[in-house]
């Protein structure tokens, strides 16, 4: 197991380097001189030149990339053009909010998805199975930014139970978490259903039934435990979609998290912030994927770790 984890961490390094390269190359495509942008329109040629050499922009592109990677490894993501603060500080201020939103959303995804999947599988072809799967299909197709607006319309504007926007109390969390979590819940529900149906047909379940084990114990103790293995991978993949989805959800609910930071930075052409934020979110995603992969192998001992 230790060798497997070490190898998995080692495999992550080229991917992370690749991510830095892609982000670096995309930012190279940005039209205009970043030194001029930083110095401002009224700056003299000398000032621009000074900033250029200060940031190493007069160096060859390859050198610039290696300097960039070195700085990133040391936690230096540059300085925001808009606020003049270090990008890492901007990110660290907003990150806890996004992590909290992601946590509640993934909880919605897991709880709703598992419940719907289990009910569907244990009552295959029943009315509740069909209606749950239709709802799941709708859930996959709904644009989450629209769902968010409709939730605001009904629960904040008409019934006025939840606040329209903002962040702080538990009431602020519910609508955004539902908005962000339902798409994933629909996918998890479909996966749990098919996985459960496959497990329920296995011999050992039939044996348990023949021995007179209670239905509930068969479902939750024997079937679900094994059916969960492929579901974990789906939840891991959903975490990626969820991190990307925070951009839209945070915009809809005016939450000052990482997602909104990216959008505001793109609008203001604050490229160091865009670059840094996208890099940090991608690194988090790669790390989460690695943890999911390791736990998947750990839970499914039949997979050869080597």
């Amino acid at each position, binding site marked *: 197991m230790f060798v497997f984890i070490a190898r998995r961490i080692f495999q992550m390094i*080229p*991917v*992370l380097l*690749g*991510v830095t*390269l*892609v*982000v670096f190359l*995309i*930012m190279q*495509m*940005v*039209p205009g001189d970043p030194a001029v942008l930083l110095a401002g329109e009224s700056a003299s040629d000398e000032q621009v030149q000074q900033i250029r050499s200060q940031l190493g922009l007069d160096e060859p592109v390859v050198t610039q990339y290696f300097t960039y990677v070195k700085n990133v490894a040391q936690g230096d993501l540059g300085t925001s053009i808009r606020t003049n603060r270090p990008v890492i500080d901007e990110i660290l201020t907003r990150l806890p909010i996004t992590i909290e939103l992601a946590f509640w959303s993934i909880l919605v995804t897991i709880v709703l998805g598992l419940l719907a999947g289990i009910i569907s599988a244990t009552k295959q072809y029943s009315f509740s199975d069909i209606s749950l799967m239709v709802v799941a*299909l*709708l859930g*996959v*197709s*709904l*644009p989450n*930014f*629209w769902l968010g*607006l*409709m939730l*605001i*319309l009904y629960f904040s*504007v008409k019934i006025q139970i939840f606040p329209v926007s903002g962040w702080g109390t538990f009431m602020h969390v519910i609508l955004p978490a539902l908005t962000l979590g339902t798409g994933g819940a629909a996918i998890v529900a*479909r*996966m749990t259903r*098919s996985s459960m149906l496959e497990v329920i047909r296995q011999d050992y379940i039939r044996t348990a039934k023949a021995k007179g084990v209670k239905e509930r114990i068969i479902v939750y103790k024997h079937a679900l435990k094994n059916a969960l293995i492929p579901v974990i991978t789906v939840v891991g993949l959903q*975490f*990626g*979609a*969820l*991190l*990307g*989805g925070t*951009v*839209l959800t945070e*915009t*809809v609910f005016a939450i000052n998290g990482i997602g909104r930071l*990216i*959008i505001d*930075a*793109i*609008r203001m052409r604050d*490229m160091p912030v*865009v670059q840094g934020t*996208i890099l940090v*979110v*991608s690194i988090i*995603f*790669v790390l989460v*994927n690695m943890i999911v992969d390791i736990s998947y192998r750990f839970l499914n001992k039949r997979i050869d770790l080597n």
Partner: protein
Amino acid sequence: MSNQAVKMDNQPSLQAPKKIKPSHPKVERWKAFYKQLKKNKMAMAGGAIILFYLILAVAAPVIAPYDPLAIDLGNKLATPSWEHWMGTDDKGRDILSRILYGAQLSLGVGVVSVSIGAFFGIILGLFAGYYGKWIDTFISRFIDVLLAFPGILLALAIISALGPSMINVMIAVGIFSIPTFARIVRGSTLSVKKMEYVDAIRSLGANDFKIIFVHILPNILSPVIVQGTLRLATAILTAAGLSFLGMGAQPPTPEWGAMLSSGRNFLWQAPHLATFPGLAIATIVLGFNLFGDGLRDALDPRLKQ
């Protein structure tokens, strides 16, 4: 005796042989596929939704009751009525007309971006699967890197550099779709290239280019078609999301995501502004998802989850 026998053989038979037109195996395969697809009611419903939107998109200039860009400030934020079935927006523009023209944009963006993703994804996947070794390692790592950007973020990063516009959305969503196609094609190529017929063609002297594009590609198209259909749903959703964020179509373009974005400012006074474009996005995406699921079951049952 033998001469007689020969003569007998050469004589035309008294019974005229029945004319059975031999059907091409490919035709038979498509017939079986269509039969299978027809059985799947959900897939047919999905197909009907897609067809419905296609007709709306093509016929938009004829059936749209108003000019989608015509401003009528005296009639702004009007609720749905006989004159304006879906009401009007904050500039008095007819929402139904804008939705009809929006279908052209959404379907167009979906098809173009998925085509970009499929084109590059197929080439990368074929090369990685066929050549293996360092080419496979290089392409696979590249795909891993593209997949390391969660959800919409890669598309956002590209747009942040290229600037917001519909063309850039198509490029960004296209690049965002490459890894999905590349992975599927790579996997299929790996299994097909080991088949005997590929060895046979190679021993007949065919070059790699011919083997890859003439003999392997047609045999791995089923999962690509399935993925293409499902990917259209994702592409339409992503493009609408980008326009919603102000990174795609700009006002007054009648794009569904952009319409939703401007509608959200009037959620209190006129909720229909945000309701109808959202419904349009949801139904078209549902159509592609249903049809894609059905195609998968009919074309490639192994992929059925």
